[in-house]
């Protein structure tokens, strides 16, 4: 149907129940515009069909699937350990969190408990990954709205995190840092010093970002009141993560259903009031600071001991199914694994936060202007690898 | 300011104006005729300059070329006139056209023959530097009343435009 739109746009019967724009003497014929799939501001291959009346957006329809690699189908032909690297490629920006979610799900299935030291290492690396993901979000989001400089600041600081990842597990982006049952590599000597050095290095840098944007009049004007979404709409549409918290719902899986070692750290969950782009910006900036707090506590209290639980070489989980979800930087990332007792999973379903959050785009953008569509896509912080799987 | 090679510039500018005038009518494409009109207006501005009326030339450039013609081009582009381009000239009253042309031609020839007596023999060389001041004094001094009426008229026009556009916003 989408190809048919481009051939003959008039026939686009939008199922979005849109009221007829008022027929004025200059009868405003709607304009159907394609945004994407190659567009600098769509964070990957997302195509948005915009129905415009002049500058106002009447309705949008997202066409996705350009980056669909069939991860769930591949999972049915791989053993549990072999599927681990694929999981990093789903949300390539927050690869460590994906790995954590998957490993913990399988450990639950195998009824195995990762040792405390492994849990601490996992918390440190996941929070570092959350920082890296938020920094990438801030850089590209500001660039979309026109501020060029934050991008370079955020990427300079993100480099430090990637260096720590590289020293620990050899890779910067798709790290494959964890294994089912714990962590494969012991932390390299100097790991604690590097992380401590980073914790003192980053706070003034975050203040630098805030200096550039938080009180910048034009930034305020471009983000305040843009892409508003209420708490009840968020819950109804299944939106999670910073977008939900910015609408005022104080819900974070790390607190609601703690996993790994999160129950042992105290940190608070920032929430916004009006659920617009500016609140989401503030929530994410505060989240970066809270992550630093977690890492600081984790590094100081990291216990000694083994880093790998006793897991059989050939994993054959008992017949059954499990759903385990963690708080990824973008929202609730869940794994529903059905095992039939063989070495290969019978079915793995990945619950992607970006995919569900993107569904709220139409509600947030309707009635706004074209320039706001780009600001809202930026603030939703979607990664197309995760949307398309 | 001692005039510099005026005769050449005079003929050049007036030829340019006439040429662009002709082009305005004959061009098929609406945008081309608008461009020709802009050219003609600029040439007239040059003529004003030669008449030691720099203020009027400046206003001519700002108002006509910079303001009104931009709106002309806006309208031509927004309402794309492809359809209008294709239609051939359909009005057949060439007879009326010829008569009008002859009448105008006769008038021009009469003026040319009478020559100098029609115009005052010599005009005081206006001091070029104080031209703007004189216009200012004239406009706000002697013709104050006319100026106010004109500005009132403009105000009405602006309010009308706002009211018409109000429905859309």
């Amino acid at each position: 149907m989408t190809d048919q739109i481009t051939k003959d746009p008039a026939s686009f019967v939008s199922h979005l129940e849109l009221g007829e724009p008022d027929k004025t003497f200059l009868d405003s014929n709607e304009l159907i515009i394609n945004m994407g799939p190659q567009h600098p501001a769509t964070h990957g291959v997302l195509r948005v069909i915009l129905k415009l009346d002049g500058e106002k957006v009447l309705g949008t329809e997202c066409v996705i699937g350009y980056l669909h690699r069939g991860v769930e189908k591949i999972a049915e032909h791989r053993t549990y350990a072999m599927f681990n690297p694929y999981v990093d490629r789903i949300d390539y920006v927050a690869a460590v969190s994906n790995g954590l979610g998957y490993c913990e799900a399988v450990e639950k299935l195998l009824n195995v408990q990762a040792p405390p030291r492994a849990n601490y290492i996992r918390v440190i690396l996941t929070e570092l990954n959350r920082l890296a993901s938020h920094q990438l979000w801030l850089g590209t989001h500001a660039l979309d709205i026109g501020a060029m400089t934050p991008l370079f600041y955020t990427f300079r600081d993100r480099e430090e995190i990637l260096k720590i990842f590289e020293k620990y597990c050899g890779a910067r982006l798709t790290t494959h840092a964890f294994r089912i049952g714990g962590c494969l590599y012991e932390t390299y000597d100097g790991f604690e010093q590097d992380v401590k050095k980073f914790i003192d290095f980053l706070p003034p840098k975050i203040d630098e970002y805030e200096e550039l944007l938080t009180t910048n009049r034009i930034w305020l004007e471009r983000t305040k009141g843009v892409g508003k979404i209420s708490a009840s709409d968020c819950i109804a549409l299944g939106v999670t993560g910073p977008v939900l918290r910015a609408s005022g719902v104080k819900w974070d899986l790390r607190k609601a259903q703690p996993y790994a070692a999160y129950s042992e750290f105290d940190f608070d969950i920032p929430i916004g009031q009006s659920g617009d782009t500016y609140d989401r910006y503030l929530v994410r900036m505060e989240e970066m600071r809270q992550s630093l707090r977690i890492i600081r506590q984790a590094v100081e209290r990291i216990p000694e001991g083994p880093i790998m639980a006793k897991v059989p070489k050939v994993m054959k989980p008992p017949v059954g199914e499990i759903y385990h979800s963690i708080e990824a930087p973008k929202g609730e990332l869940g794994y529903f694994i059905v095992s039939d007792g063989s070495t290969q999973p019978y079915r793995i379903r990945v619950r992607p936060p970006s995919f569900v959050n993107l569904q709220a785009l139409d509600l947030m953008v309707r009635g706004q202007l074209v320039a706001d569509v780009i600001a809202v896509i930026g603030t939703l912080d979607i990664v197309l690898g995760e949307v398309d799987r | 300011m001692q005039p510099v090679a005026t005769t050449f510039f005079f003929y050049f500018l007036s030829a340019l104006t006439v040429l662009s005038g002709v082009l305005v009518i004959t061009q098929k494409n609406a945008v081309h005729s608008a461009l020709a009109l802009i050219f003609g207006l600029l040439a007239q501005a040059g003529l004003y300059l030669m008449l030691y009326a720099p203020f009027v030339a400046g206003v001519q450039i700002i108002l006509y070329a910079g303001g009104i013609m931009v709106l002309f081009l806006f309208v031509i582009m927004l309402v794309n006139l492809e359809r209008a381009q294709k239609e051939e000239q359909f009005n057949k009253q060439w007879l009326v056209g010829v008569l009008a042309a002859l009448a105008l031609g006769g008038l021009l020839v009469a003026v040319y023959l009478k020559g100098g007596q029609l115009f005052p023999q010599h005009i005081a060389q206006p001091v070029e530097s104080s031209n703007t001041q004189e216009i200012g004094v004239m406009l706000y001094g002697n013709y104050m009343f006319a100026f106010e009426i004109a500005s009132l008229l403009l105000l009405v026009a602006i309010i009308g435009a706002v009211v018409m556009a109000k429905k859309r916003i």
Partner: protein
Amino acid sequence: MLDYITSYLSSNTTPGQAGNVFWALVYIMIVFGGVSVAVMAMNWLERKALAHFQIRLGPMRVGPHGLLQPIADAIKLLTKEDIIPAEADKFVFWIAPLIILCASFTVYIVIPFGPTHAITDLNIGILFMLGVSSLSVLGVVMAGWASNSHYPLIGALRSSAQMVSYEVAMGMAVVSAILMTSLNKTGTGTLSMIGIVQAQQSQQMWFIFKFFPLGFIAFGIFAIAMVAETNRAPFDLPEAESELTAGFHTEYSGLRWSLFMLGEYAAMIAVSSIAVTLWLGGWLRPFPNTLTGDTWDLVFSLIPGLLFLGLALIAFVGVVRMPKHPYFRIQTVGLAGFGAVLGLIGLILFIPPVRDRIQDIFWFSAKVAVFMYLYIWYRATFPRYRFDQLMKVGWKVLLPVAIGVLILTAIMGVLL
């Protein structure tokens, strides 16, 4: 013939005023050559300064510290293929960049680099400048329309709407500056640029400080409007890459596209020189009234020489820090040569006859350079306005304030 040429040298009016066509042509050559060099330098400065704002180095490879980068860009643009879209309107497509270029270059006829250093001194200087700068709107609209594709047309309409609406605010601010030129109820104000600067000289005060808040606010309005007029920094919406509508010059390529860039930079320099002339006392040296007396004059007259020597010093520091690798030998030699030239210019500027003659031009271009740096600073820090906010600022903020300032200036002019 010879005396015709030398006749102008004795008179102290501008060549245009003195009716000396030959010298007028010479001045035109100098000014246009100067502006082109300034555009090249501006291109280099923009890329380097923007880079250093964003903690990166900017062009370093072409010539020492990227000094030859503008030349490389120019050659690239000259040799690139110059595509005309299929059903584009050939004539309009060809003439659009020329109109923009002419509009932004004819403004330089009236810009006063010194009491006698201007191509001509029209007594409607400011009016002529505003008029011609409004012509570039035509070029923009035609460029958008001629490229015969959907998005450049919308981009062109948007940027022309922006330019037209900010021109109004600009005009109001300029009028309030001209009101200041008339002395207390006796002298009559003047439109001519040299007249304005001389008025500031005789009143011993830059107009930015006259009737204190008013001059400053009018200057502020003009500064904002001029940024919007040239589609730069926070108002560069039309060619914003993350917007749907591309800029009006997307269908252009090669030399034609570089004409647009040349026109944009020339317009930036022209508009900031208007601001300098009107509010910052064109070629007057800073603090004309407080720091008077010939000792201060001497000090201020040394500054151009010192500046060039300072630049030469920076160049030599660059040479010293250049890595010793043979690959960098050419770059070190190049940079050293560049530093030597700068040092030489600095020394020449200390010779008394040259020093006095260069004062006016130096101070004028220094002030314009400050504005150029501001343009780049804006681009590095500000995000982009949305189109409706941009128009709101233009009509609902700048215009009322400009009219208010105009009325207050008139009242103050009558009272004081």
